């Protein structure tokens, strides 16, 4: 394995674990504030933006996935996190990103897939 980008692995016991609504990565809210989302910072801009963090991440998620080898893992592929940083991801995240993010994704031609498994295809 190489030193592929790894997200900060949050402490297990943390009470403030939050999952990104877009990429489902799990970090503490402090980490979100200090480094933002390792995958979607470019579009979400969570860094130093607590309100944005509240809007774009949630503490309501179910299932924790340790993605160690994102490239190879089927789990990562299934979760569509194969291209993301290594780290902890949520299996299911409740909620949708704010509308402006959805609009932005739309304008980039990216299909937004909510992480709550409400849409299956």
């Amino acid at each position, binding site marked *: 394995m*190489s030193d*592929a980008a790894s997200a900060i692995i949050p402490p297990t*016991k943390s009470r403030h674990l939050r999952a990104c609504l*877009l990429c489902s990565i799990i970090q503490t809210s402090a980490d979100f504030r200090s480094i933002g989302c390792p995958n979607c910072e*470019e579009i979400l801009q969570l860094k130093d933006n607590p309100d944005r963090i509240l809007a774009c991440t949630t503490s309501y998620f179910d299932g924790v996935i340790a993605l160690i080898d994102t*490239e190879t893992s*089927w789990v990562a592929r*299934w979760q569509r996190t194969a291209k993301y940083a290594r780290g902890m991801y949520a299996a299911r995240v409740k909620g949708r990103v704010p509308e402006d993010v959805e609009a932005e994704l739309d304008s980039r031609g990216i299909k937004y897939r909510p992480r709550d498994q409400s849409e299956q295809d």
Partner: protein
Amino acid sequence: MSDNESPPRRKLYDDEEDEEEEDSEGSEDVENEGSRKKPKRVKQRQKRDALSRFLDIEAEVSDEEEEDEDLSSEGEAGFITKEGALPEDEDEDDLSGRHHARVDKRRQAEEYRAEKSAEEIAREGGGHRRFTGEMSEIPQRLLMPSVHDASLWQVRVKPGREREIVFSLMRKSLDLEYTNKPVSILSAFQRDSLPGMIYVEARSAQQVSQACNGLVGVYPSRGIHLVPIDEMALLLMIKKVDGGEKIVPGTWVRLKRGKYAGDLAQVVDVTENGEEVGVRFVPRIDLNPREDDGGGRKRKKNPAPNTTNPSSSSSSRPPQRLFNFEEVIKVYGRNAVSKRGQVFVFLGDTYKDGFVEKDIKLNSIILEDVNPTLDEITMFSSNNTNLEETMVDLSIIAEASRKAALAVLQPGDHVEVFQGEQAGLHGTVQEIHGDTLTIIALDPALHSQKIDLPARSVRKRFKPGDHVKVMQGKNTGETGLVVSVADTNNSRTMNENTIVTFISDMSMQEISVFSKDLREAAEVGNTTNIVGEYELHDLVQLDLQTVGVIYKTHQSSFLILTQHSQSRLVHPHQISLKKDKSDSLRSIATDSHGFEIRVGDMMKESEGEQRKGRVLHIHQSHFAFLFNRDIAENGGVFVTRARGLVSITPKGALGAGKLPPGADLTKMNPAAAGGAQGSAIGRGPRDRLIGAHVVVIKGPHKGYVGIVKDTNGVGLTALARVELNTGNKIISIEKGKLHKKLWGNNNGSGGRTPGWGSNTGGRTPFGAGGRTPFGAGAGSGGAPGGGGRTPNPYAAGNQTPAWNTGSKTPNPYAHGNAGAGNQTPAWNVGSKTPNPYTLSSGGGSGGGATPGRWDSDRNEDNDTHKDGGGGWGSPIPAGSGSGIGGWGADISSSSSWVTIPSTPGYAHLTSSSSSSHTAPYAAPTPAPTYSDYESNAAPTPEPSPTWLLDPSLSLHLSLLRIHILGTKLDKYLDGAYEGLHARVLAASRTALIKIQGQPEPSSEQDSQSERSFPIKYLLPVAPATQDATAVILYGPRKGQKVKMRQRPDEGSRTELVVVESVVDSGGGGASSEGGSEEGGGGGAFWECQKDWMCVCW
């Protein structure tokens, strides 16, 4: 990302081609991993290139086809084909329009890689990687795992530590990445809904166990199981059944923490990201804050100290109570509460409509198993007068119950489909299976086809003219004819409901409810009309001055018509007192002609509107509440002055005493009858059972003892209303199931309930029947109404203090003038109604005690009693002489009694017989009792001298409590053991007993010794306390063990007491018991004569 990023990305494909590589990787020397990997990867890449790219692609295509046959039809087939095989960058290229370059790139993968890495490095340095949402275009089903993917392995872990272990695996694999023992799992995950297990993605089970090795709480020894490939995706698709999606405004939740922990709350709104919900709940404001916590006073000055919780200081949390501005400012001061429009702000919380409204984190509320109780919901809904809102509540309750469809629909319901493909269809429900309904379509085109539908997609269908009944909601129980059916405009949550308006059968008013709350029903409103303990048409006290009659009940409130003819909406807690029914039955008023009005009479207003009605209640002899179904106003209840009423039925005659004997007066309340007696002398006989002490001998109340309050006819099937001694309850029961208790026994119980004791005299005629001289006298001499008349059982029931004293005071007969003298006025006071019965019966009881009976009865009792009997004899003339004349005469007669007790015999009795108390002896009016009892009950067999040797007792022999009697007379051992209580250790002709020093069972401090005693001196001790265990000595149940269920009266030896068979008894005979207890057999409770038992230690 570094330039080394690409190798691992390729790895998947390397592995796909050559798994052995992967397997051997772990054992390879990884000292210079970076350099090792790169050459290897290059080698493989070259290998692939050599095989030609087309072959590669073909292989991928075939892979995809395995997964999904639809693949070829997909427009994106080419792209998808590559998905598994191509690196991300190519997808990216695809998006950026460089699709055409893919094939070339493939061939020059190596160069491209390097180039790309550099590009990425540059990008990373320049800021954040552009979010591309790669792969989001691929349908999920095409991501299904293939045989080339690593497998998932299920590993058992300690429940509750799943998440922790997944984190540990992550950290471990990162930590060991560059060591010589890297963790070679690809991922690991856990699902909250699968406790006790985690899933690890790896190529082999050995890798899994290697990864888990050393982690606490993982149980690889319990097996590392391969997850079948077709189940892999399912594991990641698990959805919580009750997930957050279901939170919609109106959902019921419970709060998890704080002083409101466990309280029900209702979701008002949900924040955009679904993380916080606005809820409202009933506040718990401490209206008695402790002074010393600096709260109360300080807060007055400090308007909004948000941080302090009004009750955080107090140990117990305050009760739930809707926010009341007035109350709160009274306690916390006006400044503590600020008002903003419709809402109050108090201590940082917002209060609206009495509820707290608060935004709460999703993880501090409980969403599952909320199960709100009706009471809780009532708190929320009671304030909603607005129909719309109420209905929102109800529909949500139904939804919250998750069985919405089931709760609402029943087979046979007429439904229509309002959503889905079948929308518009209607039919009748045939079956309900879980959430699926089978309906038979009524559409002729469908030929009564059976159709399965999700229950949620149908709603009940009604049409004007249907007769319906409301199944839930405030109007529960209302029935009526549908007049209109309207769709609700509010389509948000209400679309399964239409509003149906119907005209109530009862109130003739239009009521609108949701269709789901309705059923078609043929019956006409027979609602129970009970809210809590209040029933329709109950008379209730609202405050000191106001009473009212409930004329309409709602779900949690009533409409009440007060005596001032005002209508009020009242909640149960506003009612201070419910007027007892019997209370109201007893109240009497006079109508405009001076005749009595009683509850139940049909009356008419003599003036004004001349409304007719049945008297429901009479208040203070002045106001009469009447009910007439034909009057729409106030539910047919109206109030008027009693004086302004005239009877409709020619019943006034009754009051004048012209009623022919034999008229059915049994329904009349005894009290009322008593009152009437004042004017009417010599009315026909009432049911003689009324007032009698009875035992229920059959049915669920078997074994209960009570007094007959009322009967409705003769014959065994006629019903009697029996007031049970236990629980102050009145039951209706067939007369055939009652057995009259003998008054002797009553008297025994008289010792307990003071009222009875004094009453006994009056009841004598019943208990004694025709058997005793007195009874006979009563029957024949009944003419004057005095003797033959039943006493007023109500007087007894009243248990006025006067009676108490009467019964408690030592026997007036015995104690002469003083006692009797005291007694007399007391009685007068006690019976408020000028009730001659009580009085005359008092005389009567005296009369009943003929000397003869006395003498004959007391044969086996003390001699002193006999003497007393002589003394007693003389009251008869006095009693009988005064029987009619009312109390005044009795007083004189009582003065004649005075002489009686003073007869030496009696005096002797009191002094010599029972050592100290007079009370037990006072009860002895019992003397007659006793005798009377004897005449009916089987006489107590004289204990045979060898009773101890009875084989049926052998089982309990060692338990028996015996006492030693007769040694003094025989001078056996100088009588030293006389009176002592003892336990039998063994019995033959002489029993070996263990002697407790004191006669009192309680004190055992005295010397205990064992010795033999001739059994003829050993006599059983009768039970004297409730719950004592005893053994039956005689009768068919001989040898059984019983438990006393009634406190025996010390004064009477032969009292019948209620006992319960103890389990270990052998079932016993089902026949009669206690001589008088015909139906007593077979049940757990029965009655037994006290001296037939021997108490156990």
